Every structure is written in structure tokens, then in C-alpha cells.
């Protein structure tokens, strides 16, 4: 039973590591800030959760697992706020590659605002 759990934990840790690596690759490869936010903020969430599950399975009966739950919870609650602020600031200061946006419905909206 412990062996099976160990293997699952191993899988989770490796999966999490892979996703974190992918986040790094995306950060280097993607062209503008908004695209980069997708990889920096997102596979990292699943990656972190997988790593936490992996660690949690290893220390299962230990009550300190509570800390892992807190890490996951606060990550889920705070990442959206940070991502939104960074995305908003990036868009408003023009750090967006407009040639890479197929559709941009916010630009029209902002143009209407300033025209009013």
C-alpha cells in the first residue's frame, strides 16, 4: 500500500516539476507579457498543486499536512489578484503586441471611454 502511494507521489512530483519547467520555457519563448502570464501563472498552479499532493502523500498521517493545504489555498486566492493587476497594467501601458491579437474588444471599449 505504501509502495503504491509512493509511486503516486513520485508521479505527482515529476508531473509538477515538468509543468514548472514548461512555465519556464513559456516565459522565455512567448512574445509579450500577456502571453507570458499564461505560462508563468498557470501551469505553475497545477504544477504546484501536484507537488503539494506529492509531498502530502509522502507525509500523509502527519498533521503538518495542514500547512500544505494552506499553501495551496493562499496560492489559489492570491495568484488571480496578482495576475489581474499585472495584466491590467501591461495592457494599459501598451505592453501588448497588437499584431498578435486576432480580436481585441477592449481597445474599442477604451477608445469609446476616452472619446466620451
Amino acid at each position, binding site marked *: 500500500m505504501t509502495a503504491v502511494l509512493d509511486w503516486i507521489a513520485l508521479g505527482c512530483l515529476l508531473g509538477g516539476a515538468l509543468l514548472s519547467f514548461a512555465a519556464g520555457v513559456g516565459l522565455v519563448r512567448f512574445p509579450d507579457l500577456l502571453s507570458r502570464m499564461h505560462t508563468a501563472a498557470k501551469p505553475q498552479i497545477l504544477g504546484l498543486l501536484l507537488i503539494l499532493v506529492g509531498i502530502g502523500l509522502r507525509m500523509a498521517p502527519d498533521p503538518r499536512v*495542514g500547512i500544505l*493545504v494552506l499553501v495551496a489555498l493562499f496560492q489559489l486566492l492570491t*495568484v488571480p489578484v496578482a495576475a489581474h493587476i499585472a495584466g491590467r497594467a501591461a*495592457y494599459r501601458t501598451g505592453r501588448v503586441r497588437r499584431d498578435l491579437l486576432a480580436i481585441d474588444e477592449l481597445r474599442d471599449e477604451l477608445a469609446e471611454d476616452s472619446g466620451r
Partner: protein
Amino acid sequence: MTAPSDRPRPPARLRVGRRAVHLPTLGVLVVVWAMLYDEVSAGVLLSGVLVGLAVLLAFPMPAVDSTLRLRPWACVRLLARTAVDIVLASARVLRYTFAFGRVPHSSVIRVPLRTRSDLMLTGTAVALSVVPGSVLVEVRYATRTLFVHVLGAANAAAADAARADVLRLEERVVRAFGTREDIRLLEAAGGERGAR
């Protein structure tokens, strides 16, 4: 304040001098405090209450309009669907990441939400931000409109699909946490507002 009929009972409060402490918030803080320790003992709980009281008195929070209901079954559905979405969307972002030599095109789409509630708006925005592939760029509070950057949405069809996804997410959030009024509004609006 405006809809007293929607409020079953006033929230439990403890008056300390001129400030009021919201007891459920204190309870949550004590639970978080206890989770930081190896074991739950009287000392941990007592220090948790003291620290919680100090935090709440030092940083008074504005009262949230807490017209929130928890529907267990809908919550489970929301969590399960979001978990599946996170995995699927992570795979999609992963594919873009390793498609070397191709730069992904994206879209910024406008999604007018159907809900009128602050909490539902916040819940939808948070759930949306947790799922990969979408970054919130702007929130229009007055019209309850979200502007979402969707990675890889290179044409109108993909943008419409992403918009429908956001509206479905909103529906799941409202069904999990919304009041009856919220759900009624959602059903009255149907899917029409999303199809602009």
C-alpha cells in the same frame, strides 16, 4: 443594506470598544492558525483567538454584503469541473509552449456577465484566473463585464467558444454560491447576453 429581506439573520458580532469583530471571520482565522501547528491544543487555540482578535481589531475590514449560500452538490460540481478544466487547459498551454517556431495568436474578448452580485463577480473572476489559458485584463464593475485575454484564440470562432466557456463558469459559480435571486437572474438572462 438595500435588501434586508434577503438576509436571514444578522451576522454574529462581538463588540470590543467601538469596533465590532465578525465572529465567523475570527473562527476562520483560528482554524488557519491551528493548521500551522503540528497538533491542536488549548494553547494553540487560545493564542489563535488572541492573534485573530488583534488582527481583526488592527485591520478592520469593510463589511461584505454576504448574501452567500453554499449548495454542497453544486460546489462539488464546480470543484470537479474546475479541476478537469485546469488539467485540460494546462495541457493546451503546454502544447503552445512546446510548439517551437510558432508564435501563438491571442484575443482579448469582452464577456458581459449575467450576475449582479459582487461576490459572484469576484468568484467568477477568481475561478477564471485559476484556469489556464485565460488572463483577466480588465473588469468593468459598472456593467459587470470581464475582459479576458485568451491564449491561442486566433479567430472569431475560438473567441466565441472562449466566451461561452466563461459564461458556463459563471453559471457554475452562481449555482454553487448564489442566492435564489442570483440563480433566477441567471436563468432569466439565459445565454443571450453572451452572444454578442
